[in-house]
């Protein structure tokens, strides 16, 4: 568990913090007594000024000690809570990096991720302010009560504190009420956010149908919910402070009346009376903060649970232990009778798939959506674990190859053209400083994107993504092709990567890749368009995870199966430019 790991390494930092906190709470109680003594001294007919001055000196010293200890405990405890926050966020990030695609594709986990990121703040509050408040409250109250009963008068203490247990129960109950209402506020806020989110993402449709006013109407109901839930919550939460104030008012009244009579009976001194009031004042804040502590604690623990849930998801792919294979890949691939079923999926995604690809050759794959093309790519990249003895590179089982060696050896172009918000250069060399500018330029040329890049004012330093320039789908796709080419990998996989570019660009890219393949790179091209596949050395047609046709373009055309049909249809539907 993260918390245990953190405590093992950094937990000791809480110790001085807690120590100073306890000392601080203890010293904070002292001035009340000193003030009482001073007043006792001053109410004597003849004042011993030296004693009073000594009292004043104590007051000043106590003030400085309180300052110092408070500064120290806050720095230690709050600082360590911040350290915990940083630590947890890093652990989460590292864990995210190890999680398989299966985790990310699970939609419910998407929410978990968002929560986990936000939850870290709540955990920090538990191990910072909540921790400090509770220790401080307990110590201050204990020392105060002991000083009251021991130093002043037992029965006065008892009677004055009589309302406090009732108050604590009320505070706890009301805190629960506030939390429940706060949850409703959060739900209302989530509803408003959801509405706004959808509205803004669909704003073009709204404008196209002039639905602005109607949207306002739909928004207004949720907007009103925000108002009513908030007011309901405030009714509960704003009653808390005054309620504490009033019930302590009763305590003070008791101390006034009963303490006054004790004083007149000579059982306590004026200084005792004053000190007693001072002690009583010190208990107000801890009691008042009970609700806050409970709130922070319950939120923090819920958050920690969610966080741990995310962290408990095991990484799907594990690094090979025995690395029989040495050196980089050469480009030979063999798939033997590969069947694969995704975890939790009812059906097999691949059934008995076999093929062999010699270095420098290309394999084309055609098939419907869901025929198993992307699954095959996932397995070749070991994003999921294929069964032992089914996938081989240069004759070595995939499980005997280090993940680094494997993935370094494969240039992969995905279907979706995701770019990071960074410069084009960073996106092509993909944050690897070892890749030189020359390689970046060459890759850009090979991917037929060079001309577009240098047309930007900042060339390769142009930022893309959220805060940068907007690229067309085709441009993004070509950058992601350049990203795959930049390291001149022995194997290149295009996972339906050409469907977003127009026919002309597809032609240009394939043309420049041809040189790549002739230079000894093995290629796997997944595509919908025959034009992208026809030059492959071998083409397989997948259907429901099975190979239904295989051969060269000519062979398949002659065969007159799905491939030939598709080719015919596409010849009829000659495709045009891209949008």
């Amino acid at each position, binding site marked *: 568990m993260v918390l245990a790991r953190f405590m093992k390494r950094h937990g000791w930092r809480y110790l001085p913090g807690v120590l100073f906190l306890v000392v601080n709470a203890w010293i904070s109680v002292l001035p009340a007594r000193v003030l009482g003594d001073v007043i006792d001294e001053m109410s004597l007919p003849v*004042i011993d000024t030296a004693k009073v001055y000594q009292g004043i000196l104590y*007051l*000043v010293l106590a003030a400085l000690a*309180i*300052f110092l200890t*408070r500064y120290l405990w*806050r*720095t230690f405890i*709050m600082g360590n809570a*911040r350290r915990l*926050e940083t630590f947890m*966020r*890093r652990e989460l990030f*590292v864990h995210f*990096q190890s999680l398989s*695609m299966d985790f*990310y594709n699970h939609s419910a986990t998407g929410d978990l*991720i968002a929560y986990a*990121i936000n939850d870290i703040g709540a955990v920090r509050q538990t191990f910072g302010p909540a921790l400090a408040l509770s220790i401080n409250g307990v110590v201050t109250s204990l020392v105060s009560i002991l000083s009251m009963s021991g130093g002043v008068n037992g029965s006065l203490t008892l009677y004055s504190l009589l309302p406090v247990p009732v108050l604590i129960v009320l505070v706890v109950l009301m805190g629960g009420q506030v939390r429940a209402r706060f949850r409703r506020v959060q739900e209302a806020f989530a509803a408003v*956010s*959801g509405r706004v989110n959808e*509205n803004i993402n669909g704003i*073009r449709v709204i404008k196209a*149908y*002039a*639905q602005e*006013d109607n949207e*306002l109407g*739909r*928004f*207004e109901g949720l*907007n009103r919910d925000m108002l009513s839930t*908030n*007011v309901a919550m*405030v009714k509960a939460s*704003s009653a808390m402070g*005054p*309620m504490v104030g*009033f019930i302590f*008012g*009763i305590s*003070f009244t*008791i101390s006034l009346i009963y303490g*006054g009579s004790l004083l007149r009976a000579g059982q306590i001194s004026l200084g005792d*009376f*004053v000190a007693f009031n001072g002690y009583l004042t010190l208990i107000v804040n801890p009691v008042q903060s009970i609700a806050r502590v409970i709130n922070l604690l319950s939120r923090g623990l819920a958050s920690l649970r969610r966080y741990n849930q995310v962290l408990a998801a095991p990484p799907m792919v594990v690094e090979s232990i025995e690395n029989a294979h040495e050196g980089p890949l050469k480009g030979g691939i063999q798939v033997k009778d590969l069947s694969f079923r995704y975890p939790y999926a009812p059906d097999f995604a691949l059934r008995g798939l076999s093929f062999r690809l010699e270095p420098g050759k290309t394999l084309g794959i055609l098939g419907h*959506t869901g025929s198993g093309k992307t699954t095959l790519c996932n397995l070749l990249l070991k*994003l999921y674990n294929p069964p032992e003895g089914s996938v081989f590179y240069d004759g070595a089982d995939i499980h005997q190859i280090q993940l680094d060696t494997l*993935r370094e050896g494969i240039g*992969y172009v*995905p279907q979706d053209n995701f770019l990071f918000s960074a410069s084009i250069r960073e996106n092509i060399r993909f944050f690897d400083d070892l890749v030189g500018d020359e390689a970046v330029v060459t890759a850009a040329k090979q991917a037929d994107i060079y001309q577009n890049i240098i047309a930007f004012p900042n060339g390769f330093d142009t930022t893309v993504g959220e805060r940068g320039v907007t690229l067309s*789908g085709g441009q993004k796709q070509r950058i992601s092709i350049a990203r795959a080419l930049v390291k001149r990998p022995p194997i290149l996989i295009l996972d339906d990567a050409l*469907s977003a570019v*127009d*026919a002309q660009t597809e032609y240009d890219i394939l043309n420049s890749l041809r040189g790549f393949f002739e230079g000894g790179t093995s290629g796997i091209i997944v595509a919908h368009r025959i034009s992208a596949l026809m030059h492959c050395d071998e083409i397989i047609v997948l259907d429901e995870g099975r190979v239904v046709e295989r051969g060269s373009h000519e062979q398949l055309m002659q065969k007159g199966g799905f491939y030939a049909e598709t080719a015919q249809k596409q010849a009829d539907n*000659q495709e*045009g*430019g*891209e*949008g």
Partner: protein
Amino acid sequence: MRKGSMTARLWPFLRPQLGLLLLCCAMVLVVNLSELAKPYILEIVIDRYLVAGRPDNGLDSVWGMGLAFLLCAGLSSGLNVLEAVAVNRMGQSVLMDIRRMVFRHIQHMPMRILDRFSSGRLITRATNDVETLNELFSDVLVNLFKDIFMLIGIVVTMLMMDWQLALLAFTGVPFVFLVTFIVRGKLRRNFVVVKALISRINGFFAENISGMRLVQIFRRERQKLKEFDEMNDAYYASTLVQVRMNSFMRPVMEVINALVIALLVWFGCRSIGLNASGLEIGVLYAFTNYIRQFFEPINDLAEKYATIQSAVVSTERIYELLDDKANLEDLNQGEPIAARPQGKIEFQHVWFAYDDVNFVLRDVSFTIQAGQSAAFVGATGAGKTTIISLVSRFYEIQKGKILLDGVDISTLSKRTLRRHIAVVLQDVFLFSGTIAENVRLGDEEISDREIDEALRLTCAAEFIKELPGGMDYPVTERGSTFSAGQRQLLSFARAIAHDPAVFVLDEATASIDTKTEQLIQQSVKNLSVGRTMIIIAHRLSTIRDCDTIFVMSAGRIVESGNHDDLMAQNGLYAALQSKA
């Protein structure tokens, strides 16, 4: 923006509630008076009954004073709750107004402006930024009146009880302000840094989660972790600064508080000892209480400073958005279109640039007769898609004229213009709700029967009849349960249900299975009956039957005619055809 102007900004919202506001002030006054009375009662008890030993006489007794104390406590607590609830109700209704204003503003922002904002930023304005103001109201403003009145009240009471002692007590005040002022400035600067860092970290998380597959495939985990560590460490360092400053600020207030009390005791001791001013112990004790009460609101305000800070930032950001009023679209401005138009579309020497500099359309002229179909083809960036946005006036053109039935569309009301021109975008957007709601899209005049008809005509009925509940089948966020083709059909149904005179279609590029593709073709055919049809084509096969095909290149129309004409011309169109 300064805090002062934030108040000025928020004031118009509060003005209508002036009566309630005054009532709240009155309540605050009573609350404060009773709070002030409490130490005074203590003073009386000590000096009159305990020190001077005055005998009890009915209510003129310690008992009486006790009851008075309890009364004050009750009064202050009760009114305090009432006031807090009232102020909050006010604040919440202000927030509701602001939220509505922001939302309405966003609805009426023209595309030209919307393009400049990322959706995330806009969403933040309407939600999180308003929420930050909420904290300002519920955390700060509720106590603000009370705190300020309290400060004044304490000053007056202290001066009245013993002006010398009071002046002595006030010597602490400049120090309080000095500390607050210095630390506050630093805290503010640091706060900005912390906030910027955390939003960068969260953005980094989001981006890396979206791109994790790539990071893993390319084995860039280490590089990304390094990048993350840099941010995370910088965040930690700046939060530590924040922790230290906060650790300093609060205790230093208490030191000043304690020192002032020590000073008072010293002075009291001297004057009692010299018997010069006749200072009474009760007064001294009351003063120590007043000073605590005096420092509390100041501490409070200092503590709430972060909230005030972020509220200022949020107000700034909200008003940055709201202030840009000049560019808002007025849907009703211009002549309304009374009857259903014929649907003749004409471009006359249209020049258009999204950014006023790089022209996307250059001197484009064409005419599409009512009821005819026209297609635009050309390479990426030729300007095809831009035409859609101009026909329904999402953008204003720089030069030239666009006419609907011979009337310049810039003189027509956008509401009615858009009512009669249906645009189906490449990326179909479905709203959460039911299928029927997505077709009707808020137009209650469209009956269920018409929806049924629209779904039938667009062949969407084919797959909807398989769904439980039919047209009442719920659409999840963005319609993720439907395929791209099905979404397309639904958006056709949406268009046809609104019976537009002009139908504009930006063909989807996404791969759609053959069966759905056939449905779409049929659907488009059905749609075109009795309507002007404009297709932005990405597949040349779908437009062969169009009456006119316009071939675009670099923002100009370079060829036009029907399929056979263009093929005969053997120009760009023929070249595009041969490429596939």
